[in-house]
């Protein structure tokens, strides 16, 4: 990397806004931070005195905790607000709530919100840095970055790999960030799932589309299964979870069609036996828990890069 390089983003709203150089900087920083989490005293003073607000409008265990752990390991002060505890349930708008939070001078707000574009809206209205922790069906950049880190760690590279992403591509912000991120870093991304869950123009984001899961995973280095959101059943997207598991679930047979050393990923939480065979989730090729570990390192890196520069 160019020694003159400097990560110059105030906000991290999506991987669409980051260059390959930016992504590499995050991954390298995360790799160097990963060791901190294995120390007996898991804390560095880097972000001492910084205030970080976790502003979560949707239920989240993994992502919220991961950001909080990351911030605390960097010695930042963290505060959590969830939808039920915030004044938005009293009718306050997102912008008003955000302005009130901003008036308390946080350095960074981490937003999880059910509406696409909400992180951008927040960034447009307040002075603090904003990290998008998932906005609607748009992007989930820290998840994309931790997936990139996990693949780079397991395979030693990203460029030239074949990544198969299986499942609900249409409603998955994880899929969107991954397609954008892996494509930018030189991997070939193929998606497959029920045609009802493949959105228009996904090719423009950088993905190929396969009609069958078997075709999608053929020769793949990475198989990523996505969570099926059971709450989407009112729109007739597929007949049943049973049929979904049979034709679109990642089974041993599907895994066998990929390269023998292919790794299995899932952003969690898993519907075991629906989108992913439990034996694969827990098997030797699974890096699912490594994804979670790397999530902390990636989020430490993001916090450091947007706040630790001064």
């Amino acid at each position: 990397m160019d020694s003159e390089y400097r990560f110059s983003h105030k906000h991290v709203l999506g991987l669409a806004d980051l260059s390959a150089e930016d992504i590499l900087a995050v991954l390298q920083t995360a790799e160097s931070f990963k060791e901190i989490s294995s120390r007996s005293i898991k804390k560095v003073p880097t972000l001492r005195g910084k205030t970080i607000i976790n502003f979560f409008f949707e239920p989240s265990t993994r992502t919220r905790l991961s950001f909080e752990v990351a911030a605390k390991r960097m010695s930042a002060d963290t505060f959590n607000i969830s939808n039920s505890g915030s004044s938005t349930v009293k009718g306050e708008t997102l912008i008003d709530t955000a302005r009130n939070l901003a008036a308390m001078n946080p350095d960074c707000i981490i937003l999880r919100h059910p509406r696409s574009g909400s992180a951008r809206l927040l960034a447009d209205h307040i002075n603090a840095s904003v990290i998008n922790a998932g906005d609607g069906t748009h992007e989930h950049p820290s998840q994309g970055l931790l997936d990139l880190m996990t693949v780079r760690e397991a395979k030693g590279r990203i460029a030239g790999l074949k990544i198969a992403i299986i499942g609900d591509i249409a409603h998955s912000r994880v899929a969107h960030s991954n397609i954008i991120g892996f494509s930018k870093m030189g991997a070939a991304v193929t998606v497959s799932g029920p045609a009802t869950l493949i959105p228009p123009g996904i090719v423009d984001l950088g993905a190929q589309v396969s009609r069958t899961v078997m075709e999608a995973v053929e020769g793949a280095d990475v198989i990523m299964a996505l969570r099926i959101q059971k709450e989407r059943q009112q729109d007739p997207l597929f007949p049943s979870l049973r049929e979904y598991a049979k034709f679109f679930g990642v089974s041993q047979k599907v895994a066998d069609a990929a390269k023998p050393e292919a790794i299995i990923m899932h952003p969690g939480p898993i519907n075991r036996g629906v989108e992913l065979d439990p034996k694969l989730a827990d098997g030797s090729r699974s890096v699912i828990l490594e994804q979670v570990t790397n999530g902390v390192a990636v989020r430490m890196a993001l916090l450091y890069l947007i706040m630790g520069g001064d």
Partner: protein
Amino acid sequence: MPGLILLKNGRVIDPANGIDQIQDVLIAGGKISAVAPPGTLSEQTGGIVYDLAGKWVVPGLIDMHVHLREPGQEYKETIATGTRAAAAGGFTAVAAMPNTKPVNDNQTVTLFILAKAAEAGFARVYPVGAISSGSSGEHLAEFGELRQAGAVAVTDDGLPVGNSQLMRRALEYAGNHDLLVISHAEELSLSHNGAMNYGSLATRLGLQGIPHVAEEIMVYRDLALAEFTGRPIHIAHVSTRESLALIRRAKKKGVAVTAETAPHYFTLTETAVDGYNTLAKMNPPLRTEADVAAVRGALQDGTLDAIATDHAPHGELDKDMEFDLAANGIIGLETAVPLTLQLVRENNFDARRMVELLSVNPARILGVPGGTLSVGAPADITVIDPEKKFVFTEESIQSKSKNSPFLGWELQGKAVLTILEGRITWRQEGDFSS
């Protein structure tokens, strides 16, 4: 009684009388009293004289699709502010959609709207009643009383009539009362939850798409019902290429269909919403370049009969928020003339066709006076300066709301004088010294 006004040396464009030449127009007693070659009408004492060299004198523009928001949402617009915006945009008449609060589904609301419009005095307001009570899509509204009170058409605009039998009955029963039925064509099961046009931009923004077929399926149904019942239908805010193909085919078959589009559908594409710009959020949504080209072609070839603005005022409260949650619609009364003139400048059609689209045809479709400069007709007249350039700013807007994707645009062409029954309802400051 309004006094004498002499409009001198303007280019009189009056398609109804086959006139497109420099003429003087004399207004007396609220009516057009003479149209004659320049210099042949004597200037009378006490009258106002305007020298309109370089300007167009056309029959008062009629916007057949506006939302005035009163009663119920006066923070967005009132009948007074909406008609003031109409006058400033060159309109002498507007048709007011019924999705007020309460819905204009009865004579009381219709009479209220007419009383407020008369009080304001900026433009003729033609109330449009609801097809169904409360626009809830279940029972027919009382068309007879709506008509008696002054409604000129019926629609559930803002919502489609989802039930085909109800639409059929509306078309049949509207015939008893000489009411036009206006279709808001949208198949809700396809557009449900959608926030913008379906396609790769929607995917990139993570927004649910509204596919063009959601409009076309309903356009087809309503054309089929119009043909089946033998009753006329008017299709509102047409936005897609295939809708236009369906309308073109129906017209060829002799179905009594008329149709309108709005300036944004021939000016903007879906890319205007990129960056989650809620000022470009509307329903039907902005479409693709191919659709824009098709709309332009249809204005030229007669598939589309009218340009209407779908003026939809919303406050910041309704727009400054998450894209999904933001209200649909933009104001349009004050940008229609320059945006339509842009098509004239680009040779999509000529000035005469522009007057047909904005005045002659809306009058004919709604069955209301206007659209002509015939001697003896009410003096509803719009004077347009086709060259005048201006930057469209919030400060210049007469509407109560400022929700326009054209803010900051440099526009060319402006209504500089608007006359309603011989009274001046709008005069562009700085353009006349009279």
